[in-house]
Structures are given as structure tokens and as C-alpha cells.
């Protein structure tokens, strides 16, 4: 008997782990027509784990003090063994995560998986997207480069357009009149503790919802029918489905490997892809660099603010769009999930993606 079996026997006798494993792995059945889009959750879990691990390693050498932050990042990149790898994986990973989050959201929207009884799963997922973007923004300031300083200065300034509370919000975000040590301190605290804690809790809640309600069946195939409205809680079973382990796990593993390959390809072969030149100059409050643009995933918001005659109007439009998406399951209550039978939604979906891409491209070249 191998050591592994001995340990499992020991744990099984005390905690009944074999039953737990069977229930959640081999006897956990998924719909037979489940597709690759469903692997994005596992991909994101892996990517978040990589961010967590590299983040902890960066914390060992990073100094969250304005006089030392830039130098400490330079030291990580040049002196610390494999520091360049850890930092680049962390920075590139943030972009890959946003990419995977957007794909995950788009696939859920297309297949209508956000609909009843999965409203809470969607809500948690969408909040995870917002928190991740918040993590990206707070992380952006930490290297204390020209890019960090000026992007944060302008990003926080736009909150001034909020009626009545604008000035208060700017001071609250910055911890003072200007971006400085108090800003770095609070962004650092949020980035390494506040947001990850919430993110962890939300991930757990999201996974709990997924497991408790059951995986949604892809709305494709001739025998798919909309679900009747639920009078009471019911776990969606998939009798005759495929086991999660080892069947679907192999697909998860494959897509995870492809995402990691993409991330590492950028890290090794195009490390400057997400770093404009201002990212390598120390912050200088007296020199405003020309043409700083936000990261690709914020370009839509940046350009929206420029399109409207006032920044407040731009912020209001952005806020409305985000709120509509957040509350979508409570607004779109029809049980129909088949894309072919939701022409209005699919049209809005395609136009929405096209608008996002077009405004982002416009923002990039504007």
C-alpha cells in the first residue's frame, strides 16, 4: 500500500474524505454537451493563484514608500534572483486575468447562464470583475513610476466631477490634495490586503453558488428546454452526464496550460507589451509626460469621458452601463437561454462588443 493510500485511509477514517472526493469529483456529473467556455472559471482560479503567489514574493522586496518604491522595483527587476520573472509574470498576469474575466463574462452572457436561479452567481462574478479592475488600478500605482503617478493623478481627478461629494471623494482616494505617500499607503493596503481578502471571499461565494445551484446546461441542442420558474430550491442534476474527474478536469487542464503558455510567451518574448516607456521612469510630480494612456481594458472608459461634453456625463454613462450589467439577471427575467431565440439580446450583445472594441481603439489612437 502506497503512502498516498495510507494518508487517504487515515483521513477517510476520521473525516470521510473518500465520500467528499467522490461527491465532488467522480460522482459530480456535468452536462454532456458542456463546452470549453466552462473551463474559464478554472483558468481564472489558476491565474489568481499565480497572482497571489507572485504577489507574496514581490512583497518580500517591495517598499511602499514614495522615496523607495521605484528603486525597490528596480532592484526586484535587476538584483533579486528571478525577480524579473516574478514581477513580469505578476504584471502580465493582471492583463491575462482581465482578458479571461471578460471572456468568462461574455460566454455567460451569450449562453444566458446568469438567469434565474443563478442571479447571485452572476452578481458575485460581476463584483469579482470590478474588484479585479480595482486591484489592477491600485497595483498600477505601486511601482511609483511616471506612468503610475500621472495615471493615478488623472484617474482620481475625474472623481471631482461627481456632484456635491466630488472634492471629498478625490481627497478620500488620495488621502490628501495630491497623489503622494498617503495615496501610495492606501492603494498598497487595498492592493495587498483589502481587495484580495474580499476577492477571496467572493470567489468562495461564487464557487459555493456554482456548486450549490449546479452547473447550467449549455442552451444548445434539440432537446434543450427553458427551466420552469422555481418555487423552491433545487440543485440542477445532470443524470447521464460526464464525471468532473477525470473527464472534465483534463479539458480544464488543457485550457489552463494554453492560457499559461500565452502568459509566459508574453513574459519571455514580449515583456514590454504592457509597459509604455513612462513605466520605467521614476515618478516626477513636476514633469507631465505626454500622451499617457490607460491600460487597454480602461480605454473604453477613458474615451467615453472624452466623447461627452462634461466628465460628469461621461461618468454617469459609465456608471449606468456598469449598473445595468450588474443587475441584468433582475431585468432580463425570461427563462429562454437559447441565443437563436433571443435575437434582441444577441443583437445588443454583438453591438455592445463592437462598441467596446471601437471605443477602445478610438481611445488608443485619439
Amino acid at each position: 500500500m502506497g503512502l498516498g493510500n495510507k494518508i487517504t485511509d487515515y483521513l477517510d477514517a476520521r473525516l470521510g474524505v473518500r465520500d467528499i472526493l467522490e461527491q465532488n469529483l467522480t460522482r459530480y456529473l456535468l452536462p454532456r454537451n458542456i463546452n470549453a467556455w466552462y473551463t474559464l472559471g478554472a483558468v481564472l482560479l489558476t491565474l489568481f493563484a499565480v497572482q497571489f503567489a507572485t504577489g507574496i514574493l514581490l512583497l518580500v522586496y517591495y517598499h511602499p514608500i514614495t522615496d523607495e518604491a521605484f528603486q525597490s522595483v528596480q532592484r526586484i527587476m535587476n538584483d533579486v534572483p528571478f525577480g524579473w520573472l516574478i514581477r513580469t509574470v505578476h504584471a502580465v498576469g493582471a492583463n491575462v486575468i482581465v482578458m479571461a474575466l471578460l471572456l468568462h463574462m461574455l460566454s455567460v452572457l451569450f449562453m444566458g447562464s446568469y438567469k434565474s436561479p443563478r442571479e447571485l452567481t452572476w452578481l458575485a462574478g460581476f463584483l469579482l470583475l470590478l474588484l479585479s479592475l480595482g486591484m489592477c488600478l491600485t497595483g498600477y500605482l505601486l511601482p511609483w513610476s511616471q506612468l503610475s503617478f500621472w495615471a493615478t493623478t488623472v484617474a482620481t481627478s475625474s472623481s471631482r466631477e461627481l456632484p456635491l461629494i466630488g472634492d471629498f471623494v478625490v481627497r478620500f482616494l488620495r488621502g490628501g490634495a495630491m497623489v503622494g505617500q498617503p495615496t501610495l499607503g492606501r492603494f498598497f493596503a487595498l492592493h495587498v490586503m483589502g481587495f484580495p481578502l474580499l476577492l477571496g471571499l467572493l470567489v468562495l461565494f461564487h464557487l459555493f453558488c456554482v456548486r450549490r445551484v449546479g452547473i447550467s446546461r449549455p442552451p444548445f441542442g434539440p432537446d434543450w428546454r427553458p427551466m420552469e420558474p422555481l418555487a423552491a430550491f433545487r440543485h440542477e442534476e445532470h443524470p447521464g452526464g460526464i464525471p468532473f474527474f477525470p473527464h472534465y478536469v483534463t479539458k480544464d487542464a488543457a485550457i489552463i496550460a494554453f492560457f499559461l503558455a500565452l502568459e509566459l510567451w508574453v513574459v519571455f518574448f514580449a515583456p514590454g507589451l504592457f509597459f509604455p516607456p513612462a513605466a520605467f521612469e521614476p515618478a516626477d510630480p513636476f514633469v507631465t509626460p505626454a500622451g499617457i494612456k490607460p491600460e487597454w481594458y480602461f480605454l473604453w472608459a477613458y474615451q467615453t469621458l472624452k466623447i461627452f461634453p462634461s466628465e460628469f456625463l461621461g461618468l454617469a454613462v459609465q456608471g449606468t452601463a456598469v449598473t445595468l450589467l450588474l443587475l441584468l439577471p433582475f431585468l432580463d427575467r425570461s427563462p429562454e437561454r437559447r441565443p437563436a431565440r433571443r435575437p434582441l439580446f444577441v443583437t445588443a450583445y454583438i453591438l455592445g462588443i463592437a462598441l467596446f472594441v471601437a471605443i477602445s481603439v478610438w481611445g488608443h489612437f485619439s
Partner: protein
Amino acid sequence: MKTYCLRTAPRFLFISVLLALLLVLAAGAGAVSPEGETVCIQCHGAQTGRLGAPVAAWRKSIHAANGISCHDCHGGDPTDMAMAMNPARGFLGAPKEGSIPGFCGRCHVGVKEDYLASAHGRALGRGGPHCVTCHGNHAVQKAAPDLINRKDCTRCHDYGRAEEIKSAVLDTDRNIAELTQSLTALHRTGIVTKDMDDELFALRNRFHRLFHNVDVERVRNQTAGFQGDLLKIRGRLAVIDAELKRRKLWGGVVVALLLIGGVVALLLHKSYKKEK
């Protein structure tokens, strides 16, 4: 205590998510507007014709690219519209022809010295060329050997001697330009190149200073020394390049392994499907 935590947790969650939302929305404005422009640029930039032209020319210049603004040369107060051109605030205005080398030489000290000692400098005020003759004024570009050309030099004398100087500096200057490009590329990957940047910057300045004395023999004699210094920098770059190549090699191996692993997992998945 437990009740307190349970009560405050949702509030904390709400505030933090709100903060994230606020940050996310605010992040959209992550671009820099031209705020912080000096009053010189605000006023002259809005004018047309002779008074506005210098701003447009300056914007494309090497000075603008390096953050050297109007007041750095012309003096004055760039923060006060009313007092901007007041001599009491150090405003110098535009220099007369004879004082141009002194005007530019406040920053380009070495070049000024060599220029003044040269045949060009000795002819200053008597039709001899000065800084602006070759480099222009507001649209000043990065100095390059192309500034020595038949069209410009023959405005005053034969091209022969100038051509000799140009051919003597061309190789070294090309080397300096290549190294500058390599260092910039390295800097863009997060590698600290400051020591080499500073060394190359000083070397470039010394070298450019050298040919302002328009002495062909001196340029030829000293070029070997400059080439030797450039070789030393190139050697240090080669070490970094080798390390980067090693990283790419290992990176390629890891990426390939991940791709192979992914394909194997997919094949395994297909085999399970067939079994069913």
C-alpha cells in the same frame, strides 16, 4: 464580538466594492491632459504668425522631447502671465547674433568652448556661422552628422574639409546611435541601464564637442579613443544580451512544454469521451 463582525462585514464589503467601482470608473481618465503648460506656451501657442510659430516649431524639437521649455533658454516667469517677460524675473528675450554661442553655451558648455576656439568661432560677427546657422533655433533637432552637408557648408566655403570631418566622425557616430538604441530597448524591458546611459551620454557629448573645433587631424587622432570606450560599453551590453537570450531559450522550453501538456490533456479528454 461575533455579532459585531457579522454586522460590519457586509458594510465593509459594500464600501470596498463601492470603492473598487469608483476606482474603476475613475480609471477611465488615465490619460494626461496638457495641464501644467507654461504661460509662455499658453499665450504664444494661441497666437498665429511670427509670435506663434516658435511654439509649433519647438514642439517637434529635441528640447521639447527632453522637457526643455521656453523659460529654460529665454528666462522669465513661466507661471505668471503678467510678469512672464519681465527682466526683473530673469527674462532675456532673443539673443543678438554675437551672443548666440553664449546663450546656447550656458548649457552646452564644452561645445561652446571648442566652437569659440575654432575657425567658425573666430569668425563670429564677421559672417561666420554660429549655433543657429547649422542647428536652427526653436526646431532644433538631435545633432547628427547629416548636419554637415554640402548644401549648408557650401553657403560659406568649399565642402572638402567639412566632408573629411564628416567621414571621420560617421563611424563613431553610427556606433553611438546603435548603442543608444540598444540601451533604450533594454531600458524598456526594465533593465537598469542608467550607468551605461550616463557613460554614453557623456561620451557622445565629448565626441560632438570634438568636431566643433573643425580640426580634421584632431578628430582623427581622438576617434580611436572614443571607439575603445564604445567597445567597453558594447562588451557590457553583450553580457546582458547573452543573459536575455538564455532567458528566451528557457522561456521557449517552458512555453513549448505547456503547449504539449495542453495538447496531451486534450487528447486524454477525447479518449475519455470515446470510452463513454
